[in-house]
Every structure is written in C-alpha cells, then in structure tokens.
C-alpha cells in the first residue's frame, strides 16, 4: 500500500464494516500436522479442556473414530455434539451446534469431504458456517490434505491423494492462529529396514514441508503486524534475496546463484532489472526470461537512480541479501570510490551485499589485470 493515500470515505466505511464483521466472527485456530498419529487430536482436545477449565463453553463437533486411550480420556471430560450419519459417513451436525450455541467448537479432521447431497461439500465449509455465526473453532488438519500442497505431497509419498478430502491453503492462511504439532517420524512398523528407511525419509520431507508452511504463515502474520504498526520489515527471519541486474549484466550466473541460495534458505527470490535511459531492449527481454525461468518475482526499477531505488525497494520487501554484478564499462575505483556500489554498501543496513565476479558480456572471464599499485 502506498504510504500517503488520502482517506477515501467509501473505503473507510468498507473498512469499518469489515472490522465489525470480523468482530462478530468466531476465531479459528488450526493444529497442523505432517501425518496422522503425531498428536493433533490430543492437542486440540487438550486445548478445549483448558479453555473449558477457564470457563469457556466448549463442545466437540467432530472427532475421528479411532482414538488413542489418551484422546478418549480427554474426550470423556468434554461435551460432545454427536455427528450425524449420512450415507455411512459421519458429518458435523452444524444445525445442532448452532442451536446449542457454544463459544468454542472443536472440529477434528478439517479436510473431510461431506457425502454428496450435503448442504456443504467440505467440512472446512461447515467450520466456515460456525465462524460466520460467531462460534470460535479449534480444528486439526493434516498437511497432506491441503489442496495446494498436494502435488508435492504426492511426489514425496509416491501415491495419489484422495481428491475429495481437501482444504484450500487460503482457509488456513486466514486462520487467526496456526500451530504446528511436531514429532519425529516413527517408522517402526515397516517390516524391512530398507522400507523403514524410505518411510522415514518420506515422513521427514513431509515434516519439513509442514514446518516451512507454518513459517510462511507466521511470516505473513508478521508482515501484517508490521504494516499495521507502520514498522519497516527488517527482521530477516525469512531470507529474501534481491538480484539486481542490468541490460549488460551477466544475469544468468547471478540469477542461477540467487535461485540456489534462495532454495537452500527456503527463502524468496526477487529480481530487479535496473532500467536505465538508453537501455537496449534485448537485455531487458533476456533478463525477464531468465528471471521467469528461475521462478523469481521480477520488478523494474529506476536504474538512473540506482541507490535509492534499490534500497527503497529492498527495505519495503524485507530483503536480507542484495546481489550485484558489474560490467566492464566502469573500472572498480570509479564504481566503488564515491560510486554507487560504495553508497549502497554504506547505506544497506541489515542487508548483505554480494558482489559477483566481473565478466565480459559474452560470458568470458576478463583478461588478467595489470599489476596493482600497492595499497598506500
């Protein structure tokens, strides 16, 4: 959002209405696990028990059929609104819960599909209805059922997921709170050591995905918090790499390196093409293609106003590392002493600057430099 927007009365009204609607809405908390059996249901019920102890009116709206003794022990201490049976399936009895009007409803297994002919196709939509009616909900979900994560989960597990049981990632991201239920994978059930090793490996990859998804959601919440409080995002919990390229840069090397580094840090890759007056279009086109191929977000920045445009952009986006190259057109003393790279280095607080090796436009390393004058 631009910093100096004149308040528009319609916008303010819409905002006030949105805030009012939000105030009436129930709060959603989600326990996220990377597989079944890590203890999501237990954590949800335990939270319900603690809230009930603190005087909140809590009911259980959905719970999985097969449960550990610990889960059953907790369940026995909570009021349950029985699920309805429909076509041999258990579904959340939304009308009964709305009549009962608790403050908090616990809903296990957010991703279940309701049987055909139900009022709402998915359980997460039932939860949406509860929230819209001012009932706060504590729910659980397994990473494998998040729609957008399915391709990756299928790649890791080597199995197709049930296409019906899903929850959209946007629903999770809109949750007020998300909490990871983490535990090391247990692969003791597999018969052969090799199978156990592979299972463990797959579970580890899923576990990593779940932790990173939670980190992304948290990052988004942090950004929102900083925006609300008018703070600059220079926290750097998430690595963000900004590769600055010009028409004449050795962009391929820099963007590839940026991609590799961003992947290793599970960070974001941004590419800025520094557009200067008199730029040749082929260079711009090539850089855009390279950035797109590297799956990077690309931005055009004012190259004639290099230092300010890079720093303003980088600060606004919480960049932690800036990659710069240089061309053969300028000599290093010119570029560094009193030059823009020097100013950038001096002013880039909280950001690393990585300078890439000097290459000619055709990608060859430059000829060996003449002997250096001594330093003094």
């Amino acid at each position, binding site marked *: 959002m631009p910093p100096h927007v004149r308040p528009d009365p319609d916008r303010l009204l819409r905002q006030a209405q949105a805030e009012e609607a939000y105030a009436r809405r129930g709060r959603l908390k989600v326990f996220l696990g990377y597989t079944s059996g890590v203890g999501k249901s237990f954590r949800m019920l335990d939270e319900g028990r603690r809230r009930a102890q603190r005087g909140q009116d809590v009911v259980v709206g959905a719970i999985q059929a097969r449960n550990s003794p610990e889960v059953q022990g907790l369940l026995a201490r909570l009021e349950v609104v029985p699920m309805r049976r429909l076509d041999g399936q258990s579904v959340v009895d939304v009308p009964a819960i709305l009549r009962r009007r608790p403050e908090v409803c616990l809903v296990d297994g957010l991703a279940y599909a309701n049987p055909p002919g139900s009022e709402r196709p998915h359980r997460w939509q039932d939860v949406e209805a509860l929230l819209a009616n001012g009932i706060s909900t504590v729910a659980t979900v397994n990473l494998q059922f998040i729609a957008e994560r399915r391709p990756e989960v299928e790649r890791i597990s080597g199995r197709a997921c049930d296409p019906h049981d899903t929850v959209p990632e946007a629903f999770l991201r809109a949750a007020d709170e998300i909490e990871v239920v*983490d535990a090391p994978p247990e692969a003791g059930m597999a018969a052969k050591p090799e199978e156990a090793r592979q299972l463990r490996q797959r579970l580890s990859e899923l576990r990593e995905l779940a932790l990173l998804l939670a*980190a992304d959601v948290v990052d988004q919440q942090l950004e929102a918090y900083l925006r609300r409080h008018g703070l600059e995002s220079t926290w750097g919990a998430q690595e963000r790499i900004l590769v600055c390229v010009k028409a004449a840069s050795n962009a391929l090397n820099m963007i590839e390196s940026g991609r590799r580094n961003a992947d290793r840090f599970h960070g974001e890759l941004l590419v800025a093409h520094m557009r200067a007056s008199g730029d040749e279009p082929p260079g711009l086109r090539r850089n855009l293609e390279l950035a797109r191929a590297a799956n990077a977000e690309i931005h055009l920045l004012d190259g004639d106003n290099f230092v300010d445009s890079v720093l303003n952009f980088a600060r606004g986006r919480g960049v932690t590392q800036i990659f710069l190259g240089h061309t053969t057109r300028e000599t290093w003393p010119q570029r560094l*002493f009193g030059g823009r790279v020097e100013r950038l280095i001096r002013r880039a607080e909280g950001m*690393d*600057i990585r*300078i890439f090796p000097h290459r000619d436009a055709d990608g060859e390393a430059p000829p060996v430099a003449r002997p250096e004058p001594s330093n003094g």
Partner: protein
Amino acid sequence: MAEITPYGHLKLFLGYAAGVGKTYRMLAEAGQMRREGVDVVIGYFEPHGRADTMALAAVLETVPRRRIEYRGAWFEEMDLDAILRRHPRTCVVDEFAHTNVPGSRHEKRWEDVLDLLAAGIDVLTNMNIQHLESLNDQVQTISNVRVRETVPDWVVQRADEVVMVDLTPRALLNRLERGVIYEPEKARRAAENFFRESTLVALRELALRQAAHEVESREAPAQAPASSERILIHVTADPSTAMLIRRGRRVADYLHASCYAVHVAAPGQEAEGDAAAVERHLNFARNLHIDTRTLRGTDVARTLVDFAQLHGITQIFVSRPPHRRFALSLITRIVRLARGMQITIVADRSARTERAAD
C-alpha cells in the same frame, strides 16, 4: 576396556521463548518412557514454580544437584559425576544453553551433555532459538536483547532429533498474563523484552525455519549433496568480526559449504590490543568448528586473495566497514584481485543499542 560404548541418542526440544512448553513436552515424554519400563532419571530440572511441570517431574527419579560455592554464595548445578555413576538409560536435562558456575567441570551445560552422550546415556534436552550461536545478531535485531548464553550450531547439528515445540504467541501471552510462566514482577519485565508480540512472532518464525532446516539436514544424503562452495571469512580485530563469523557459519551450513576463517597479520600495521582481539575472534571461529589460519603479509588484500585462489574459495566474507575510507578501499582491492570469486559484504545485524540479557 576394548569395547566401544555407542554414543547416546540426543533429542532436543526447540522452542522460541520461555513458557512454550519445552520442559513439559520433555518431561511428559520421560514419563511415558518410564511407564514403558525405560530407566530414565532427571539430571537437571528447573521448576520455575510451574505446577504442571512439577507434577510431571514428581513421578520421576531425580539425581540430586551438586552444590558449588562461588564468591561466598552457593549455587546448584547438574551433578555430572553422580549421573555418570548412576548411569541411567536416559537422562533429562533442562536448559541446554545454561552456563555453569565457575568451579564446575565444564563451562557449559551442553558440554556436560556431550559427556553423558559419550558415556552412552541418551539425553532429552531443550533450548530456545535465541540461544543458537549463528542467530545471535539477528535475535538482537529482533528482540533488542543480546543473548549471552549460546550453543554453537555444530552442537545442535549433533542432536539426533530436533523437535519444534510450537505455541502461538497469543496463547503464550495469555499464559504470561495468567502468571503461569513467571511471577508478576518478572512477567512485567519479560513483557518489555522478549514477550512483545512482534518479537515473539519473529522468533517463532526463526524457530520454525531452523526446525525445518534441522529436519532437512538429517534426511538422506542424496537430498543434500555436498556443494563445491567454499567460504573464506576475513578475520580482523574489528568487533564486527564476531558477527561476520556467525553469518559466514550460517550461510556455509545452509549451502553445505566448507568454511575458513583467515587473519592476515601485517607486521607493523597493527594497533596495540589488536592481537588479543584477533586471537579471541579466531578462537571463537574454532569454537564454531571453522578452520582458522593466520597469514603474514604487508598487502592484506593480496595475501587474502592468494590464499583464496590456492584453496578454491568461491566466496569471501568481509564486514561492512565503519565509516573509514581505508577499510572500503580494502574491499575494493579484494574485489579487483579476486577474479571469479563472489565478495559478500556482511551487514551488521545488531545495529541497535546493546542491552545485556541473561
């Protein structure tokens, strides 16, 4: 004895603040083990007056603490020798990052834990993300607090399992307000430091990302091929060197790169007291398991780059110079000489005012 004792298994519960439930998780797991017949004892437990964890600890055997006198006061520490004599299958050790009182066998509790592991004892322990050495500067930026008790990254890497103990900041702040975590006065002070919501959210994100990194680095080697990256960290007497070493270590770990810390001693060019500062920095690097070298040469940039070329270095890390022209000219010369290498000028991540913390 000819027989080699297999190392104990180390499980580390990772959190992002006091009160997220690390000790609870650890003790609950120990209780479960006990019910399954495992010989488990508590080596150290810090109750902090919390009823729920105290109830979990009460059903477990505890090895009494050792009392140590220091400057006329009595302190209690984990009794390493008593645990080694008792030799349980599994030992619970609270607060992995704790610094022992002088007069203890080791300076750090994590060193005690390494001894337990070497004796074949499994250990359950816990720490917060802010105690990880390589994040020290970032944590200071986030929280405004310089954490003094740190654990080197290689020690965490040594853990067989790292488990994230997650709790939403809102739930944590509720606990703080209800007086579950600290007594009122300490809670009020805490709310001004680590327990601001934005700080908690940022620390939590750091912890989640670190936990993901720890999981990834324990996956099959096929997932993490050794890279050809080699990082050189330029060590000087400047205080920013500590930050440079932490950042270099962290980047090297993520890139699976090898790492050197190199100082160039230029005879006659060093101020008094510099040698001691350099030695401290090199020692710090060694503690983080970084190879260190001291080279001699009057031309610092040339000596550094010659070494880099000889050792196939791909990235040179230098710190952002203070506002002195000379220092920047060093970077300029390194860039000019170091053809084919990337030069990273590392930002000071702890630029805010320092405040000591426990």
